[in-house]
């Protein structure tokens, strides 16, 4: 009887699938989803409006708060957009440091994702491990930037402070440690029958529609399409470093998980290469007095590869000391709404959080 009855189920706004609050209104028949609708608005902080009221530098303390698990790509993208508007050169050393910080940010975000993905499938141990190990990355950030989560470190013109003494050695050691730990993670997650059974064939994104739907990042590469901003439009020092972009066929949660697993390895390799090649010289091309700093009129569309995929900033200046418009395009903007609404029908209720997590949905990025 119950299998035939249609009900509406409100999932969220708090649930294990995502970082942040977002509600998915599900129409279910039995335990199968027949229609899904995303509802956001729990985390609207009007950041884009606030940025318009602040000067060019002040806004960078808001940028990192667009998305909690990934503050750094936001900073970097905005800094690059402003540099592009201004035509400001960034010293070579700053480019390398930015690359290292971006990749560290990717790793810490991957480790957080490990926690979410395993947690939403009931495997809590791995979450404890990976979030614990993530603290070693945060330690590196603390030494480098003075803060663990919101670094506010990459600003227009370069980075805020040079590498502290002994930091490079510490970074090498942390990379060695993490590399060893990845085997342990595999043991708990990828070799685990529970995860395999939960992930395979679930939440499939069709390969032929993926790009049109606006899918980016690991979910896109999980359908077998190779697209990564770091290769398409290389920024910072990425064109001088060797790395591969892993792809897997299938388009399901499993394929996305495998992509992410391989990407951590690539990130570790990128960091090592960048540390090896780190050039000397200045780390900061001084901006003028921030209170009187004006940026020439124009527009910039700058993209960066974050863990959840391509993010972009559309920045418009009217030549004054405040931005006219700063508009973030987060990876989750399409993933969390239109893509999710398309792939949820037919799935099990228990898999909804699981799929949300594998899409890397970050609600604060949708509503900003």
């Amino acid at each position, binding site marked *: 009887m119950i299998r035939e009855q249609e009900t509406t189920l409100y999932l969220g706004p708090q649930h294990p699938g995502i970082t942040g609050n977002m509600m998915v209104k599900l129409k279910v028949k039995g335990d199968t989803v027949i229609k899904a609708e995303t509802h*956001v608005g729990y985390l609207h902080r009007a950041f884009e409006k606030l940025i318009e009221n602040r000067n060019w530098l002040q806004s960078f303390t808001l940028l990192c708060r667009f998305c909690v698990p990934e503050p750094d790509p936001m900073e970097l993208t905005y800094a690059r957009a402003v540099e592009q508007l201004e035509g400001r050169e960034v010293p070579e050393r700053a480019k390398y440091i930015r690359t290292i910080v971006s990749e560290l940010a990717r790793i810490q975000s991957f480790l957080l994702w490990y926690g979410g993905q395993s947690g939403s499938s009931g495997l809590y141990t791995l979450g404890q491990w990976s979030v614990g190990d993530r603290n070693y990355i945060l330690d590196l950030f603390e030494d480098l930037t003075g803060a663990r989560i919101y670094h506010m470190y990459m600003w227009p013109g370069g980075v805020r402070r040079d590498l502290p003494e002994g930091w490079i050695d510490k970074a090498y050691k942390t990379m060695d440690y993490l590399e060893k730990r990845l085997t342990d993670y595999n043991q708990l997650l990828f070799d685990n029958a529970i995860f395999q059974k939960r992930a395979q064939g679930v939440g499939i994104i069709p390969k032929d529609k993926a*790009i*049109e739907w*606006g899918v980016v990042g690991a979910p896109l590469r999980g359908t077998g399409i190779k697209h990564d901003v770091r290769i*398409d439009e290389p920024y910072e020092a990425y064109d001088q470093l060797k790395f591969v972009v892993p792809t897997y066929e299938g388009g399901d949660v499993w394929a996305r998980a495998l992509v992410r697993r391989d990407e951590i390895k690539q990130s570790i390799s990128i960091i090592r290469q960048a540390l090896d090649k780190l050039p000397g010289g200045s780390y900061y091309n001084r901006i003028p007095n921030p209170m009187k700093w004006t940026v020439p009129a124009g527009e910039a569309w700058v993209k960066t590869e974050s863990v959840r995929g391509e993010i972009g900033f*559309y920045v418009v200046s009217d030549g004054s000391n405040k931005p006219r418009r700063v508009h973030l395009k987060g990876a989750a*903007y399409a993933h969390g709404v239109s893509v999710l609404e*398309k792939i949820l029908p037919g799935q099990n209720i228990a898999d909804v959080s699981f799929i949300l997590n594998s899409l890397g949905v970050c609600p604060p990025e949708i509503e900003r």
Partner: protein
Amino acid sequence: MSNFKKETKILKSLKDVFEIKGSVKSDKRISIKADKKNVSSILLFLKNQKGFIHLNHISCVDWIEQNEFELVYIVWNPKTRLTVMVHTRIKRDEPVMENIDTIWDQANTYEREFREMFGIEFPGLIGAKEFILEDWDNIPPMRKDFNSQQYAIDTFSTRPGRENAQNVREAIQKRSGEEIPDFAKKYSRD
């Protein structure tokens, strides 16, 4: 411009078909300005004929001084890796724009956002009226004439304890007896 061969080619093919103004901004970036009635045909042309199948972004800018909204459609071609930015301006006091969520589904999300945050109407747009805001009865908040600071002052209360704050410029001015004329005050530090 020989460096921008591919970019120039796309621009030319667009100029052949449509009445547009445009230029190659930089490597891989083509920027065009079109009339609002041509936008959907340009986007369809780019998607179906030229391989720009990925809708990267739609943005909206309020140019209150000119009494216009500017809509920017950013599309991307995964093969050539080129980006085309289609700009169009619509009247601020008659904010209606064609709905393009039949071309790209995810445009629906953007349009719902702009309907709510800028007050732009997209005829035929499906989806809940309330997307990000809840029970909003003010002017659309992303419009430049919405003063968010004033709104915060009117809506929220401040905790007591900070009333004795002083303005440095005023404190010095008071001490020295300087009189700042009105025409100079707008250049004081705020």
